[in-house]
């Protein structure tokens, strides 16, 4: 029922139609009067040219827009590396509670004990899940966690008089890993992957030196494979005086099964929006808590939630801390959701979640490997990467075409063209919350698409056919960017 074009709110604007009576109307002295002689130069001549419309118009607009999206609530969404699991509604209820949602961030600790206890418990829970010593909840997302942890590691090295200018990242790493290095003034040095998809220990050993601050590794890695040699890698890293940083984006594979701290990580980030079921919100917000080993704990950012004599408070007085990485104490609303999730699942539920995520991925991989090349051996962990580069064929762009065609089946495409080391990569992460029937219908859809590829490939070229819009011209968008309505 969607129209191909939905007018923007600016096109729907009707001057005079919205008196804005949500709040009291301004009466009494004008701002110009109240601001005194200085007022004139400070005040704008006219209000900003925002659109005007009645509440019904607003409701219709955003109701229409909502139906123009794929979402976990409406679609299978096997977007690899993003853990698009079900986002329980009880978490939304929790985050909206008065006493949590309406709590000012600078409320004195005695009046914010519930919020602080929640944060304290979540920090502790995450440390336990990580097998590490302490957690900061401050970082706003995974990349922010990487940045925070790198700064902690740098501060640690500096406390030992070392500068260490480079950071190793496997060639399969997520783009945020090298980008975070740059933001921290460190150069990112790629480490090769072996043909079996794991980190090449020889290359690692060769690149580790006394200028290496850390190895950032993702485990399971972005191919969905567990780094079998993780302990040996950790050993090499530590021998070089560097730190092992774990990108925890893939923690959904190993909850209660293995802990980064136990396989050598000194620091790691979590993505609460992946592993702990907080919703992705069309791009965010997430939260990227960082857990660290004891030797790194003094350097964690401020504030840190602490418990003292049974009372909870924010500790701002941390002399070795790297400082603040954001205002206030973090994405609190996400903490409420993650806390609720962890309380609901408990240790058994978390383990079962990971086990089932692994089961679902292996099931799909086993079914799909006959349709498209699967470059790495099974078992995988919670996700796997197919290649739409079939042997001996010119399949350039095929991953993208398959992705677009999947939209016609009501399925959100997998992550495409990542990791970079697999040509025409299709990275599939089903998560633990899908039904077998849904997994099977995904297999059926891909099978149909592969059949079309033989019989009628043009169908793929022009896909999607049944989406809100036809194929979108991204090249034109970048050529002459139109970034605002005018």
């Amino acid at each position, binding site marked *: 029922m969607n129209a191909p074009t939905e007018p923007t709110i600016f096109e729907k604007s009707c001057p005079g139609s*919205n008196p804005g009576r949500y709040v009291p109307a301004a009466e009494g002295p004008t701002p110009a009067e109240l601001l005194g002689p200085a007022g004139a130069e400070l005040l704008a001549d006219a209000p900003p040219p*925002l659109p005007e*419309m009645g509440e019904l118009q607003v409701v219709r607009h955003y109701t229409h827009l909502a139906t123009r999206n794929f979402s976990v609530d409406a679609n299978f969404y096997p977007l690899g590396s993003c853990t698009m699991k079900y986002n329980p509604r009880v978490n939304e209820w929790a985050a909206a509670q008065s006493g949590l949602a*309406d709590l000012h*961030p600078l409320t004195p600790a005695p009046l914010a004990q519930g919020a602080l206890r929640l944060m304290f418990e979540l920090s502790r829970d995450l440390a336990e899940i990580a097998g590490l010593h302490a957690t900061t909840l401050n970082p706003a997302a995974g990349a922010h966690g990487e940045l925070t942890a790198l700064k902690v590691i740098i501060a640690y090295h500096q406390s030992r008089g070392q500068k260490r200018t480079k950071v190793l990242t496997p060639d399969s790493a997520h783009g945020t890993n090298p980008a975070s290095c740059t933001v921290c003034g460190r150069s990112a040095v790629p480490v090769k992957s072996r043909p079996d998809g794991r980190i090449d220990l020889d290359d690692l050993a060769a690149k580790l030196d006394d200028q290496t601050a850390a190895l950032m590794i993702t485990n399971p890695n972005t191919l969905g494979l567990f780094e079998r040699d993780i302990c040996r890698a950790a050993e090499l890293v530590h021998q070089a005086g560097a730190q092992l940083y774990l990108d925890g984006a893939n923690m959904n594979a190993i909850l209660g099964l293995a802990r980064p701290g136990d396989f050598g990580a000194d620091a790691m980030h979590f993505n609460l929006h992946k592993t702990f079921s907080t919703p992705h919100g069309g791009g965010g917000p997430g939260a990227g808590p960082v857990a660290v080993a004891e030797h790194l704990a003094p350097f964690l950012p401020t504030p840190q939630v602490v418990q003292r004599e049974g009372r909870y408070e924010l500790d701002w007085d941390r002399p070795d801390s790297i400082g603040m990485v*954001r205002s206030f104490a973090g994405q609190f609303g996400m903490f409420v959701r993650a806390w609720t999730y962890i309380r609901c699942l408990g240790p058994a539920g978390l*383990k079962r979640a990971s086990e089932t995520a692994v089961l679902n991925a292996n099931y799909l991989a086993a079914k799909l490997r006959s349709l498209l090349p699967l470059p790495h051996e099974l*078992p995988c962990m919670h996700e796997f990467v197919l290649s739409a580069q079939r042997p001996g064929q010119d399949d350039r762009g095929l991953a993208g075409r398959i992705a677009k065609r999947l939209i016609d089946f009501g399925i959100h495409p997998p992550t495409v063209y990542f990791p970079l080391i697999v040509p025409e990569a299709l990275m599939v992460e089903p998560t633990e919350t899908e039904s077998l029937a849904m997994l099977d219908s995904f297999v059926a859809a891909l099978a149909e698409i592969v059949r079309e590829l033989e019989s009628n490939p043009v169908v793929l070229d022009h896909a999607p056919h049944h989406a809100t819009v036809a194929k979108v011209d991204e090249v034109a968008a970048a050529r002459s960017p139109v970034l605002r309505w005018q």
Partner: protein
Amino acid sequence: MDYVQITDSQRQQMLATIGAGSIEELLRDIPPDVRLGRPLDLPAGLTEQEARRAVRELAGESRGADRLACFAGGGAYDHYIPAVVDALASQGQFLTAYTPYQAEASQGSLQAFFEFQTLICQLTGLDVANASLYEGASALAEAVLMAVDDTGHRRVVLAEPLHPHYRRVVQTYMADLPVECVVVPAKAGQADLDALRTALTDDLAALVVQSPNFYGLIERQLPVLAEAVHAAGGAMVQVFDPISLAILRRPGSQGVDVAVGEGQPLGIPLSFGGPYLGLFACRQQYVRRVPGRLIGQTTDAQGHRAFCLTLQTREQHIRRAKATSNICTNQGLMALRAAIYLAAIGPHGLANVATVSLQRAHALARRIGELPGYALPFGDQPFFREFVVRCPTGAVDRLFDAGAERGLLPGVKLGAFDESLADCVLVACTEKRTEAEMDALVTLLAEVGR
């Protein structure tokens, strides 16, 4: 309570398809010696009913603005949130989508963010706005990084009174970079024009000025400073408050190059500090250096208007170490909330919010200023909706304790930020504060001050 749908018999069937005897077999790549041989040491799982009780208990141990009339500001404000914002932003199809990589499956989010970008341009009077950053302080750090990259200069000047969190975050971000970060102290609660002029040497990357500043005062010298900044070859960066722009001059008309701010006042719950919304707008010249997502307008294969992520070559997933920022996940849902808020409240409503907040803050300041023992150190300067109150020596803690008993949060204690202000409280007033609450605060101050 968990959310797994696979049944025991399906698990067996799936294992058979896989050709594995057990899930353990699938986990064989994990070295046995690092397998966790015990359950995680966490409380046992709860039913949903129990979990709700536990949450309600926690919530009851804190006192939010519903139960504590909130005169606290300092970067987060208790403005009224129309009911329609919650109702529309919580729609599952917004809530449970992710970054709109696949444009055809994400036109809803994309259009909402495109509209958000436009709204922020309208508010700031600048050319380009991105689709959100984490929150105000890290948005400022990103702006400074962008200026450093753009100018090739290495000197960053922060004009106090800048929100201390913002200052610290910039300092943390710059700490490991070859950038010099100079903090110029305030003078009489405002940016010190003379001292700043001296600090604006020609290796200047950026000057950062907050207005309304941390003490609530509206900075008067932005155009003058901008001129000096531009003469030094740097970028003029303003930290702004989105509500204030309903009535105050817009950054774009004051010579500002990059405007960043905290979007929380635009329909986002206080929520103990997050998730909030980093606003980022700048002049056209920076468009290929902007951090974060940008949504562009284009057409689909049938010529219909469509939207997509654009200029992605700025971003980490394409450019990796050479990206303009490391940000990936942003604050999409908060940007959506801000857009819905602005669409619902409209320009007249926003002007009401700003004006009534300003009026109440001024009325309250006047009354407090008249109380014996209290002073308004910056009372003679123009302020927006927040002001500093100097209390009788040692009275601050008593004020907060007595306030809690009467259901009042009197403001923000400034001593935590600056020891020289140990007797000062930063008091904010929004359109939500009633006459009765203002009376109660004045009475409280009067009584504690006696």
